[in-house]
């Protein structure tokens, strides 16, 4: 187990290397000059001399490969650099934004679970009944609604028509409700489908017939056989959903002005505040890989057939 985890974490290194290198290259090749952006944002008249001066000050006169090397060097010392915009350390801003994104993502994930588990199990057991058809319709619709459109509809309903929530979330508890719902609904529809499918799949397994033939009572079969084994494939989709959740939160955070990482990175991209973008990508990649690792480990715990790790 220990060897497996450390092995996987070791594999993380080339991935992170690739991700950050790619981002650095992308940032350097992109049109738009961060210095110009910064200066005009500060209201300083942009002349050629000022541009060159500031560029030298910010270390941007060096070739990007060199800058990448020094960024890596700083990273090893736990320094993610300073923001171009206001000179604050990137790490501090990331931690603060991460807290907000974490709250949003976790609450959305929990809400999706609460919706999808009962619906999916019910749909699987009472296949092709009226309620099951309704559930399937909900799932299909949930698939087809883009997150931002759902957000707009929810805003229209709750903020404009019913006037129960503020439009702009700004990180308050009250403001958490709508972005959570927006993120959770598409995720819930996806999970419901998977839960239903796995339950149906397991119900057709031969060992379920075997248990029935022995006269095992139905609740035992449902809980200890069908759900127990269905969890394994449900877990796959949970793992895959996390990527979607993180990506989706970028868009949703910007709509609701939720002060999380998504909002931060969009602002930074617009302002060409590259160190922040770079830090964001790094953190996202680490989170993503670690979550996948946790999912893989829980596979092994749920399914003893897999090789010992």
């Amino acid at each position, binding site marked *: 187990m220990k060897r497996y985890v450390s092995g996987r974490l070791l594999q993380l290194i*080339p*991935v*992170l290397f*690739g*991700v950050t290198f*790619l*981002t650095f290259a*992308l*940032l350097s090749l*992109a*049109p*738009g000059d961060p210095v110009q952006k910064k200066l005009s944002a500060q209201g300083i008249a942009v002349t050629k001399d000022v541009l060159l001066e500031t560029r030298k000050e910010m270390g941007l006169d060096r070739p990007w490969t060199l800058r990448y090397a020094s960024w890596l060097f700083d990273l090893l010392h736990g320094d993610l650099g300073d923001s171009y915009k206001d000179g604050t350390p990137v790490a501090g801003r990331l931690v603060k934004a991460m807290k907000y994104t974490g709250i949003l993502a976790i609450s959305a994930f929990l809400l999706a679970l609460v919706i999808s588990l009962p619906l999916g199990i019910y749909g699987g057991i009472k296949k092709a009944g009226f309620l099951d058809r309704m559930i399937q319709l909900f799932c*299909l*619709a949930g*698939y*087809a*609604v*883009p*997150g*931002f*459109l759902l957000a*707009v*509809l929810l*805003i*229209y309903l709750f903020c*404009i028509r019913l006037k129960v929530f503020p439009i702009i979330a700004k990180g308050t508890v009250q403001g958490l409700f709508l972005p959570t719902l927006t993120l959770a609904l598409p995720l819930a529809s996806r999970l419901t*489908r*998977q839960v*239903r*499918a*796995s339950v*149906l*799949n397991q119900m057709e397994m031969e060992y379920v017939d075997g248990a029935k033939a022995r006269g095992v009572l139905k609740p035992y079969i449902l809980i200890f056989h069908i759900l127990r084994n269905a969890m394994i*494939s449900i877990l796959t989709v949970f793992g895959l959903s996390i*990527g*979607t959740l*993180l*990506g*989706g939160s*970028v*868009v949703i955070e*910007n709509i609701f002005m939720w002060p999380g990482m998504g909002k931060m*990175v*969009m602002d930074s*991209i*617009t302002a060409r505040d590259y160190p922040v*973008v770079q830090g*964001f*990508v790094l953190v*996202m*990649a680490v989170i*993503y*890989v670690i979550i996948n690792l946790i999912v893989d480990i829980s596979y092994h715990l749920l399914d003893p057939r897999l090789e010992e790790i």
Partner: protein
Amino acid sequence: MMRYKTMENRSRMKRQVIFFLFLVSLLGLVSLLAPYLITNDPYTTNALYRKGPPNLTFPFGTDKLGRCIFSRVIMGTRTSVFSALMVVAVSLTTGTAFGIISGYYGGLLDRVIMGICDIFLAFPQMVLAIGVAGLLGGNMTNAILALTLTGWTSYARLSRGLVMTMKKETYISAARLSGSGNIEIMLEHIFPGIAGELIINATLQISAVMIGFAGLSYLGIGVSVPEAEWGSMISEAIGYMQQAPWAVMAPGAALFITVFVFQLLGDSLRDYFGVGRGRYE
């Protein structure tokens, strides 16, 4: 035996596939014939009738500049369908090519290709797309490029997995004993064998790409501003949704219906051909 039941099911599924194919081709037709279907010029502003409710001249009303929303929605079909097909076509071909090579030859080549895949996967999809589109500047080509960059990995992984299972089939060994070489086996046995599942996945992917594309436009990094595109129309109209809800609802409904139809087509194809991860998904 079970056969009798499934025969009935299959003909029902077949009807479903045909029905959704019909709907999809209808959408394709709308996007092809868009310039002939519109009632007004989608880019002409009308100072006298701004944020106007639907009437006979403007079936879906007008936006804040007085442009005809109906015509803009129709023209938007073009952008949406074209870009989604483009993204899926490019990522499907590149992803599949890499995946087949990776799965068939294995070894070092496989490890390198899958390593690159891992790097792309470690970026959350939407984040990379936003990054590329945001940095390279907001226009349609860049948005397509951004979505393709994130899209090819899923095809590569899928086709690699399929090829690796297929390589173990007895008829591949039999083909080798018949004197067929690697390229011949790949073209004649492996590619046709996995094509069905890839196409079904591509169909399902189309709707996801449409959502992604509209999302980029919504954030202002998809198409450039005056262009008629559903995402950017929604984004622009959200500011005055209170006065003119139709300016949001019309493109929103168009987007929803289009995505829904493609999704249903993909689903029915998967049911009909009985492939995919589970039979009931």
